[in-house]
């Protein structure tokens, strides 16, 4: 190959082509996506145009402050290398059958996220809707025990323990209301007179996990009845 301008142009356009085809076009199509109400209604001006309902909540919801901090902990600890946050459509994989979600996730579900954590590995279950599976105080307790050492609640798990998110300390007067409540004969329970309490990072992380729920419809992805 002697014709160098051709070589250069070829090298340039090869990548320019996919850059504009995938990145720029993708950006044009998705870059302006906004949160939406669950359903659309015909517009007053033109009944053929569908618009968002006035006064209805727009989904996805923003994360609370503490959940946002928890997301940072999730990032710092690299949970993404074993957990996805994307639910595939029924009939493709068994995501819905496994109870990982009520519907598939779509691009709009992620528009509020400054860092998108779709993930590509499922050593553990998908977490896009984990807050729907573990909710409220029971969910909180389960998650703390699980994070402290997954074997406590999921024997045989290959998920790493995160004991450094917890503090083991002597009970001075009263036990802390936040102390982890181990099953009676658990080998991971602290010795008598001691308790294990979550640090602020553990609390934030669990709030983040509880906030992960795709329990709302979107116009393009309604939850099936």
């Amino acid at each position, binding site marked *: 190959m002697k014709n160098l301008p051709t070589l250069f142009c070829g090298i*340039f356009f090869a990548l320019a082509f996919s850059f504009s085809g995938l990145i720029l076009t993708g950006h044009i*199509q998705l870059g302006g996506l906004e949160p939406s109400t669950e359903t659309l209604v015909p517009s007053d001006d033109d009944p053929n145009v569908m618009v968002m309902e006035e006064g209805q909540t727009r989904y996805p919801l923003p994360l609370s402050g503490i959940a946002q901090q928890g997301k940072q902990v999730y990032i710092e600890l690299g949970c993404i290398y074993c957990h996805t946050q994307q639910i595939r459509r029924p009939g493709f*994989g068994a995501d819905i059958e496994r109870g990982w979600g009520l519907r598939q996730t*779509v*691009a709009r579900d992620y528009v509020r996220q400054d860092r998108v954590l779709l993930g590509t590995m499922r050593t553990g279950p998908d977490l896009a809707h984990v807050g729907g599976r573990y909710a409220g105080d029971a969910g909180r307790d389960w998650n703390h025990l699980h994070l402290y050492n997954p074997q406590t609640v999921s024997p*045989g798990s290959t998920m790493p323990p995160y004991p450094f998110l917890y503090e083991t300390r002597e009970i001075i007067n009263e036990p802390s209301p936040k102390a982890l409540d181990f099953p009676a004969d658990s080998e991971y329970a602290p010795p008598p007179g001691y308790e294990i309490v979550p640090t602020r990072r553990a609390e934030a992380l669990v709030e983040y996990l509880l906030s992960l729920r795709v329990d709302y419809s979107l116009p393009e992805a309604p939850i099936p009845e």
Partner: protein
Amino acid sequence: MSNESHRISPSTNPYSSEDGSVRAELSAIDASIRTAALFFVVSAIGWLMIGTVLALMAAFKSHDPDFLGAYEWLTFGRVRSAHLNAMAFGWANNVIFAVGLWIMARLCRSTVDHKGILLIAGISWNIGVTIGVLGILRGEITSVEWLEIPQYATPMLALSYALIGVWGVMAFRFRKGDHVYVSQWYILAALFWFPWLYIVAQAMIIWFPARGVVQAVVNWWFAHNVLGLWLTPMALATVYYVIPKVLGRPIHSYYLSVLGFWSLAIFYNWAGMHHLIGGPVPVWLVSAGIVASVMMVIPVIVVGLNHHMTVVGRHREVWRSPTLRFAVFGAISYTITSLIGSSMALRSVNEVTHFTHFTVGHAHQGVYAFFTMVMFGGVYYMMPRLLKREWPSAGLISLHFWAASIGITIMIVALHVGGWIQGLQMNNSEIPFIETVENTVPWLKARSVSGLLLTVGHVAFAINFFWMLFAAGAVRSRQEPTLLTKERKPV
């Protein structure tokens, strides 16, 4: 001299080339790049060892989660990412800077001027990677795959890369002679593609995050292209360079080389979208990725055929030459892993393999069985010419080869089979999830065993290398190239 050894090309022996003036010219080029190239190889081997230790930790943790479980900075997500970045930006990039730039200089017949700048750029690249890997372990990891290095270390990397890459382009600009060899196309293109990919990915994911899943699109455009438009062309350039050199026989077909190059350039860079199959992105994006992944069959078959036809009938020499034993192992792996990769992009296959250890196995087949093995071959070829010394121990080269090839084969088989089973079971909601997890454990243990074998290989490689580098006196006296099988007595 026996017939056997006569058939090994004279160019396996750095001291003898048929043409004295060519030899003198190459010698001058080698001398001009020696310091920089040595720096890059030493760094590469250093990172290879660090990456290996991190890999072993991650591998053990994957079946024994309590192993080193109490240390936050060694938690799985971090060691695994530190491993990836140490290998990708430490080992792979340094060995590319060494072997790729050296090949480029030789083919362009241009000596390296301003070596000081190249060396400083190299040092700052390695400082950048060190800061990055430590940052990952400290928890400043970004959790964006292949871009885990914290934001504060990346400008330094980009800047040092620019200085190093520009150097390669300059060598090309001031080349002598008319002919541009296929390795030069690959290296030139890769030197240009890599910074483009890296800067776009950094900008759109880390510095000015694009909205929602656009980030994921950029992420996989980048991550897949690091393999396809950076590691792959560099390794193919090396294969294209060493096979004819060692065998003393030209590449089979110029036209196949051209076709292979352009089809790779056109198709590979769309393929990354197959990482998002079934994901929350527009279907057309994914379909484009699938089509391109399948079209990759063309460059792969073409290049494989071209290499095969070049070595055909000379298998004994391939087996005897350390360089070719590794490089040809790599080239064969390229064909296999790419064909598997194309089929993994089919929706029905992807439904099973996606999200499983199958993908991890596939990645290692590409980055190790192909890229790394080829680069080992490149280093085995380059060092005697840079140092004008021979490899001290054929035994250690053999050990390296067997440990690496058996090790990586075990890993690939274990993760492919284990991952496939994992995928099938995951898609069957009647099997409790925890059972599918437990069923992966034996395969992950096999992976750890394979990791130990690879470690043995790397240690053998490093010992031989530093022995060659430092034990000058004893080694220098050897006159013959170090080959892997004994010459047969002439009949």
